[in-house]
């Protein structure tokens, strides 16, 4: 210890300062003592027992070298003095009290030590045992007492004699078992060769045509298969192969090997042709002709048939398209003949056809009408009221446009309704509504020309002829259960773009009528309901009738046969169907997991399996003697754990296992 160590540096400094500044008042400041921090390093330094893990911990905190390196270059006077001070302090403390370190610190140290030791133990145990434990857990069979890894039973270890190499060789050479095995193997090989030879010989002798045909077919199949493979593997080679095959086929066909091979032909040749060369010639000729004819007929027949069909179709569609259209048109024309005016008919026509060009003609007609009406007005003044009414009608361009739009909007709605309702009404309503719509211009016409009742009545008749008929039909069909028709919920559009309206106009009403006509007889919804009823009946839980002849018949007076029977009927519970009252929906309930065979089948994949196929394969594997040889059965049914009664099973011996 040097002399300097006695001088307290800080105090000395303070003293010097006070000397330098003589006027200053000495201040004694009370300072809060800083809390001593307990960190892992200080605690660890207390641990004196040197253990691998503690050493490692110390190293990681950087205290391991402290004791050793302190004496090196870093050792200053200051540190030395501090150390000396501490030593003195501890000495004093030792003298004063027995509790060196606070109890809290002791506990913390213990905890740290425990943690480190636990980690050590954990590592050790994991390293030693995990493998063995895991393998035991998943092994198919455990035979207790467990065998050591080298196959010697625990408890009765036997030391096997150690042999030299030469001894081993001799042992090998004189091993009867191996020799026998080898002999039997050679015998088996010889037998296999012999059998194969015999088989080949036999096959070569076969003369059966059928057999060879089958053989050939198989070969061809094989060849095709190979060819397919080749195509996927190597397209170029496949091309060559194909060429080769083609060549082979050409050669085969060219060899005239297959000419006149059938039996009947041969017989004929034998009977007649061989004797008579003329007959032979004739036959040949026939044959050739036949072939030629056959070839031709196939080609021509195809073309004709297709032509005819297409023509027919066209005709049919034409007739279909016109059918209803014509009906009305005819009626109109009939009326036209008798009337002087052609205006009404033209109007009707224009509306029937409903094209823009005809609208123009209609407008022209109106202009004419207007002129005539004006004439009439000029002649008779009593028609003033009607003239005022007519006025808007004679605005050729504007009003027509307006009306047109209105009508379009009407049509739009009507069409929608038609779509949902009138499909089932077989198009008849479509016609009536159509007629009703063009009733308006008719009325105009009537107003314009009072005297022409004739024409109107005719038109009315014609319309009624169609309309009333439709009405009757409709009445008939409305009586049918409404639930058997599809319901479509539609909303009226508030605004519709102009081109959409145009398109709607273009949609030919008649086509829809045609469709309706075509599917007139198909009651899809009704059929579906019928099917549903069938399913319902089938899946309905039935009462269980437990009546047995003679049982319960002695119950005495008061019980009728009916009552008695009722006693033995177990009533089925009413089951609510899932599809219930919902239309157009069948939910089959008989095939749920809880019924039928599902009751005894596993519903989910059990634990070790990840694929259904694997589990099924395990279940399908037959175990009994009916399907397996005895040895195989024993192998498959070997118990998971084998213990010997009366033989104590001791715990795993670590010393034996780890060879300590």
């Amino acid at each position, binding site marked *: 210890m040097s002399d300097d160590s006695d001088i307290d540096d800080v105090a000395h400094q303070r003293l010097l300062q006070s000397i330098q500044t003589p006027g200053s008042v000495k201040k004694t400041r009370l300072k809060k003592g800083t809390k001593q921090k307990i960190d892992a390093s200080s605690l660890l330094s207390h641990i004196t027992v040197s253990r691998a893990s503690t050493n490692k911990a110390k190293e990681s905190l950087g205290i391991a070298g402290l004791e050793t390196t302190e004496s090196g270059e870093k050792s200053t006077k200051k540190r030395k003095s501090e150390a000396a001070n501490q030593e003195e302090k501890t000495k004093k403390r030792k003298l004063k009290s027995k509790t060196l370190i606070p109890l809290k610190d002791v506990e913390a140290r213990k905890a740290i*030590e*425990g943690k480190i030791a636990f980690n050590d133990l954990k590592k050790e*145990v994991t390293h030693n045992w995990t493998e063995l434990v895991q393998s035991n857990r998943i092994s198919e069979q*455990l035979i*207790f007492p467990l065998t050591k890894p080298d196959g010697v039973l625990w408890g009765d270890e036997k030391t096997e004699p150690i042999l030299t190499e030469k001894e081993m060789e001799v042992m090998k050479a004189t091993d009867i078992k191996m020799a026998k095995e080898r002999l039997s193997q050679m015998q088996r090989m010889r037998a296999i060769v012999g059998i194969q030879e015999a088989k080949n010989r036999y096959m070569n002798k076969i003369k059966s045509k059928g057999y060879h045909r089958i053989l050939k077919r198989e070969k061809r199949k094989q060849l095709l298969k190979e060819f397919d493979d080749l195509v996927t593997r190597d397209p170029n080679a496949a091309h060559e192969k194909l060429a080769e095959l083609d060549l082979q086929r050409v050669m085969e066909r060219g060899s005239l090997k297959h000419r006149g091979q059938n039996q009947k032909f041969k017989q004929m040749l034998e009977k007649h042709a061989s004797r008579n060369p003329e007959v032979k010639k004739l036959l040949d000729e026939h044959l050739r002709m036949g072939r030629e004819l056959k070839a031709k007929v196939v080609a021509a027949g195809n073309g004709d048939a297709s032509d005819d069909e297409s023509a027919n179709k066209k005709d049919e569609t034409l007739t279909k398209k016109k059918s209803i259209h014509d009906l009305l048109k005819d009626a109109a024309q009939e009326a036209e003949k008798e009337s002087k005016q052609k205006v009404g008919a033209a109007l009707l026509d224009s509306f029937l056809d409903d094209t823009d060009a005809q609208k123009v003609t209609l407008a022209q007609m109106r202009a004419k009408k207007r002129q005539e009406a004006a004439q009439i007005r000029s002649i008779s003044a009593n028609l003033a009221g009607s003239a005022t009414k007519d006025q808007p009608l004679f605005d050729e361009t504007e009003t027509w446009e307006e009306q047109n739009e209105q009508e379009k909007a009407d049509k739009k709605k009507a069409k929608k309704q038609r779509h949902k309702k009138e499909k089932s009404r077989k198009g008849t309503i479509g016609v009536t509504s159509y007629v009703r719509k063009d009733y308006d211009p008719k009325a105009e016409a009537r107003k314009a020309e009072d005297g022409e009742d004739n024409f109107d009545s005719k038109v009315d008749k014609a319309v009624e002829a169609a309309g009333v008929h439709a009405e009757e039909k409709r009445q008939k069909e409305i009586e049918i259960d409404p639930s058997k028709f599809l319901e479509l919920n539609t909303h009226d559009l508030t605004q519709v773009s102009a081109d959409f309206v145009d398109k709607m106009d273009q949609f030919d009403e008649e086509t829809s009528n045609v469709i309706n006509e075509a599917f007139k007889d198909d009651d899809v919804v009704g059929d579906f309901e019928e099917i549903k009823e069938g399913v319902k009946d089938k899946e309905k839980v039935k009462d269980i009738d437990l009546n047995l002849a003679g049982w319960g018949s002695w119950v005495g007076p008061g019980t009728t046969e009916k009552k008695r029977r009722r006693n033995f009927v177990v009533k089925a519970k009413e089951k609510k169907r899932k599809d219930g009252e919902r239309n157009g929906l069948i939910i089959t309930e008989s095939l749920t997991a809880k019924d039928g065979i599902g009751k005894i089948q596993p519903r989910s994949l059990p634990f070790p399996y990840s694929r259904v196929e694997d589990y099924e394969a395990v279940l399908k594997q037959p175990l*009994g003697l009916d399907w397996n040889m005895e040895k195989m059965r024993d192998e498959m049914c070997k118990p998971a754990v084998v213990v010997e009664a009366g033989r104590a099973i001791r*715990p795993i011996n*670590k010393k034996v296992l780890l060879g300590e």
Partner: protein
Amino acid sequence: METLKKKTFSSDISVDNSNGEHFVTVGQDSQLKYWKLNSALDDQKTPAHSIALDGIAYGVSHITFSSDFVTCGEDISVWKPFRDTPLRSYNLGTDTIHTCRANPVEENVIVGARADRSIFVLDTRQEVPLKKITMKMRPNKISWNPMEAYTFTVASEDFSLYTFDMRYMEHPVQSHQGFTSAVLDVDYSPTGQEFVAAGYDRSIRLFKARDITSRDVYYTKRMASVLSVLWSADSKFVLSGSNEMNIRVWKANAAEKLGPLTKREKQAFAYNEKLRDTFKNHPEVRRIAKHRNVPKHIFAAAKEHKVIRDSRARRDLRRAKAAGLDEDESYLPQTKKAMVGDAE
């Protein structure tokens, strides 16, 4: 054994398994007694050696492949035979240590349970306990798996058993349920495949080591609550000691035929067993295999417990939902529910 300790209640017994010549008993008389095994069959009045202890020792367990043994009570002590003072003592605090078991494979490891519902692990090479975990209910007894160095099972007061992995003690790896009252004792089969547990509900249950539910349940009309169970060393029998002063010997596999079997019998039994195993997941097969008739009080209690469990689950779910958690987040398995706080 009754002849040995007529006067005092002995709380635990352990046989020296290194040479099989001695066994140790501890009891309420604060005495540690060392007996010779081969002469126990004679009318032995006095032990070979006896030590007066400071306090009552509640458990004793031999260290594997050694004659040393461990006792527990106020502290844990490691003893050598015929010595009056322990080799080492571990003071683990003020709580009584009511059971301790030395690991049958790793000779240095001891696990025990204390009155403060904690389980601790001790390494006899160290000076401090290694690990301490606390359960919600008291662990009554502990048994090591003799084939797996790091697995032990705890019989708990909360009607269940818990299997721990010693290396990861934060929570048990498996819970075993089925008892309708506290589980008082547990013992592993020497094969390590199964264990037997004794219930205060007057029944014994056999569990497969990694199954939640019991494989079988044993009871008889006159058997009172079972205090201890033991699996025989050849794993063929199970012994039970119950409160009405009887020791019973049960077959470990109730349906097994005892005695020598012919080859064909063996084959037939193996075949039947294999069939049962292959189709065990089919609902009807499983139903039949699992079905056990149990006494009325167990049946009723099980039913009641189910109601309670369900209602608690509902309550927890409700609370979790109120706290803004969803079903998956809030779900806690039974193994985690059984623990208190974090492990030390």
